[in-house]
């Protein structure tokens, strides 16, 4: 329950490995903890330092494709036959966010197999969907564990689940809880009613900043490519590596940081609805600032402006996938214009860089 913006969890294309990051569960103590003779593992509501470090690492893409919890039914506290049943995805970061929001509550948690992807992204792909929910309800014999027939799903799961199809298939009615896991206690206390604010998906600067590391990790290979190209050109020209290769690299390294961190942070204040144009404005600003600090020749200056603008514009465009308000048709529309424009800009920039070198 509760995704954290749309920094999509991890890959459905990843090989199905054993659950490499098992969650610490406590032994069975509850008299109600038997689902058809099988023990129901208990989840702690406090995170260990390993959970916290693991959460940081996946934000940087480390082990992200196998950060999973085994799907199935879990208990939090000492739930009974009338306790609420919450549903979430088996991305471990999602389970951690949910269980740490449930301190002091007695509830069941049904974890669906979304191949380690968070709720919203998995719902978009259909893995957090009606079919998996129905299968998991039957597989865990949920109807024998609780007397009521009501499930609470994260609201963002509604993209993949049709509530009116779950009821005839399983007898369970689906209610959508709040968008964010931290609102679950208030939602349960108010007899399962969500306030309008709980139904809105937030997109504050913290939500945007938390996704920046993945943008930077994604840019690591192109960055290395630029550095190696500059070093190679330096060797060709001078026969050895000079400091110029590294100083020449700085405006591009800066462009990556501007595109990966500043663009997401400044998103609401950059002009235009188009992400490519937002990024182009910021890229031009960065290039102008750099050239003001480190003036250079006309051709080299032109190549810095064109290439850094293209880099920041493209990185901002790819941030569409991490936002909470972009549409597919809008992305298609802007890419039809942005992709040829950016390729031309970058191509011209490289041409100027080569001309500057020949001169």
């Amino acid at each position: 329950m509760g995704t954290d913006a749309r920094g999509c969890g991890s890959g459905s294309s990843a090989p199905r490995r054993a659950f490499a990051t098992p969650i610490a569960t406590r032994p069975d103590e509850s008299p109600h903890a038997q689902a058809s003779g099988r023990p129901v593992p208990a989840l702690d509501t406090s995170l260990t330092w390993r959970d916290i470090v693991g959460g940081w690492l996946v934000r940087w893409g480390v082990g992200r494709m196998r950060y999973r919890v085994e799907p199935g039914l879990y208990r939090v506290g000492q739930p009974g036959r009338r306790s609420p049943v919450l549903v979430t995805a088996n991305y471990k970061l999602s389970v951690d966010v949910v269980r740490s929001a449930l301190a002091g509550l007695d509830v069941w948690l049904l974890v669906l197999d979304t191949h380690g992807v968070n709720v919203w992204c998995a719902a978009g792909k259909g893995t957090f969907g009606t079919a998996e929910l129905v299968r998991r309800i039957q597989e865990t014999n949920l109807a024998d564990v609780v007397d009521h027939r009501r499930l609470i799903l994260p609201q963002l799961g509604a993209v993949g689940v049709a509530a009116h199809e779950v009821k005839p298939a399983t007898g369970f009615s689906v209610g959508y809880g709040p968008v964010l896991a931290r609102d679950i206690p208030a939602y349960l206390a108010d007899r399962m009613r969500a306030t309008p604010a709980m139904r809105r998906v937030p997109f504050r600067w913290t939500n945007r900043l938390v996704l920046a590391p993945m943008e930077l990790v994604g840019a690591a290979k192109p960055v290395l490519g630029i550095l190696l190209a500059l070093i190679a050109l330096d060797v060709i020209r001078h026969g050895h590596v000079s400091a110029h290769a590294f100083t020449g690299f700085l405006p591009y390294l800066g462009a990556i940081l501007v595109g990966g961190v500043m663009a997401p942070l400044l998103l609401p204040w950059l002009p235009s609805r188009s992400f490519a144009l937002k990024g182009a404005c910021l890229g031009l600003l960065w290039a102008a600032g750099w050239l003001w600090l480190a003036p250079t020749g006309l051709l080299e200056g032109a190549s810095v402006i064109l290439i850094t603008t293209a880099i920041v514009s493209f990185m901002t465009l790819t941030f569409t996938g991490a936002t909470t308000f972009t549409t597919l048709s809008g992305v298609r529309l802007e890419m039809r214009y942005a992709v040829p424009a950016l390729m031309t800009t970058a191509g011209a920039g490289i041409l100027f860089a080569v001309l500057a070198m020949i001169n």
Partner: protein
Amino acid sequence: MMRYLLAGHSLVLDDTRCNGCGQCVEVCPHAVFTMAAHKAQIASRDTCMECGACQKNCPEAAIVVSAGVGCAVAVINEMRRDRSQGGASCACG
């Protein structure tokens, strides 16, 4: 509140089919719908991100929207792949 290009342009609500259950109001993360006289209505088309949750959860099939994930990387992957494989899929996953 940020707005995007073509926000909600494909969203269609057929209020003759609407049974007033309010499910669309509940699932929408951007408060696009409101209820008036036991019928849903589109109050804020410009904030719609076309995620498709309303269409998926409308028991009367009164809502149609061209749903998908607004992700440039997914669109690039879609262009690269054999087009017969269908719509854009999130590349981050």
